[in-house]
Every structure is written in C-alpha cells, then in structure tokens.
C-alpha cells in the first residue's frame, strides 16, 4: 500500500499552519503512528518556517511544495522551494549543553530535524532547494 500527499504554500501568514493541518489529516486518514506524525510535523514546521520567513528569498516570492510518500516501511518527505540556494544542514550544530542564562534564543530547528528523522538530504536541483527526509516506521 502506498499513499501520497502533495501541497504547495506561498510566503503568506498562515501558510505553514495550513500545511501542518493538511498533513496531520493525511497522517490520520492513513493511520500513521502518532509519534511519527508528530516528528514529521516538527520537521515540516522547522523547514517551512525557515524557507518562508527567513527573508532569504530576496525580492522573489518564495513558494514551498511538500510531497509525502507513505508506504509500509517508511515515510518520505520532500520539501522543495524556489528560494536562493540554501543548505539547511550546512550549519554548525548548536551547543545544547549551555545553561539557561547562556542559551541564545533559536538555532535549534535544523538540529531537531536531523535528530528526529532517520535520513536527511539536501540538493540544489534545477533552481530549487530540495530537502528530503526519511522516517522509518517502527514495524517496517
């Protein structure tokens, strides 16, 4: 059994929320385990908030397309945007051992994506940033 989900959102307020809700519905309809669905929801929030609101797309309005493929063994998420080249996994990992007073606000998002997913990959392809995430299902 194989299920697919595809949705595009533009850089407008509420775009990320619409996509999160639509993905959660898809996940529920196909009985994706809650733990896996939540991990993907977190990863999508990090990547989309990053792509749509970081202002790195300059003058051109950035749009993001999310495709999800679900089969018995894994869920594969592809996030494609038309913004300027940007490899989210090319950044240094944050220091997660600092005390409350020393913690800079932010910087954790991409670290979370890398840890929550089983595989992450970035490619610049035909003028687009293409991020691929894979999460194995527990009994796959």
């Amino acid at each position, binding site marked *: 059994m194989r299920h697919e989900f595809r949705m595009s959102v533009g850089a407008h307020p509420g775009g990320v929320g619409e996509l*999160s809700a639509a993905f959660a519905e898809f996940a529920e309809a196909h009985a994706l385990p809650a733990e896996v669905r939540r*991990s993907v929801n977190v990863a999508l929030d990090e990547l989309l908030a990053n792509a749509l609101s970081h202002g790195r797309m300059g003058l051109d309005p950035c749009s993001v397309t999310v495709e999800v493929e679900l089969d018995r063994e894994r869920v594969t998420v592809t996030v494609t945007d038309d913004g300027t080249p940007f490899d989210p996994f090319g950044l240094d990992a944050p220091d997660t051992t600092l005390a409350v*007073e020393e913690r800079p606000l*932010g910087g954790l998002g991409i670290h979370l994506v890398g840890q929550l997913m089983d595989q992450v990959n970035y490619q610049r392809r035909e003028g687009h940033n293409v991020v691929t995430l894979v999460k194995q299902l527990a009994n796959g």
Partner: protein
Amino acid sequence: MQISTRTTSDIHIVAITGSLDSTTSPEAQKSLDSVLASAKKVVLDFSRLDYISSAGLRILLGAAKQLRASGGTLGLFGLNQSVREVFEISGFSSILSVYQSEAEALGAM
C-alpha cells in the same frame, strides 16, 4: 492551539492544548507574557500538547530566563513521548524542571 490558566494558591497553572510551533507561538507568547507579568510560580501543563518545535522551545526558554531573573520558578508536567524526545535532543530536559505529574510539579514550587 488553546491556552487556559488557573491558579492554585500562588501557583499559576497554564495548560496548552494543540501544538506549539511557528504558527501558534506568537499567540502563546502573548498569553504567557500576561501570566509572567504578575506570576512568580508558573507550572505548564503539557498533558494536551501534541508537539513542540523550536519556535515553541524559544518561548519556554524566554519564560525560564524571565522567571529566573525575577527569582521565580517554572515547572512542567504531562509531556508526551514526542515532546520528551524534542526536550532530550535540544538539551531542554536538563535546563528546565520536568515533573511526572501535576501533584509533583505543584509540590516542587
């Protein structure tokens, strides 16, 4: 995302239902700010929190810093497996006080 607040003696218990992510965090921040304006002892009830992303963590860190600076305390309880995992990865489980139950959190305030 919904936020409700109740008070037990001088402890403010803030329950967050739904998700804390880039979409919901600005509103959560406002609600939390209004609680922090007067409260010194704050307990966050996460038993109905579905998931949290870095945008939500940012709010928690801000609240923790603010309370620490003013001599207050912050406790959390009711984390599901996903929220717990995000706390572990980010190191938040070692910088915030996470309790197993509401009773334990209230007792520690």
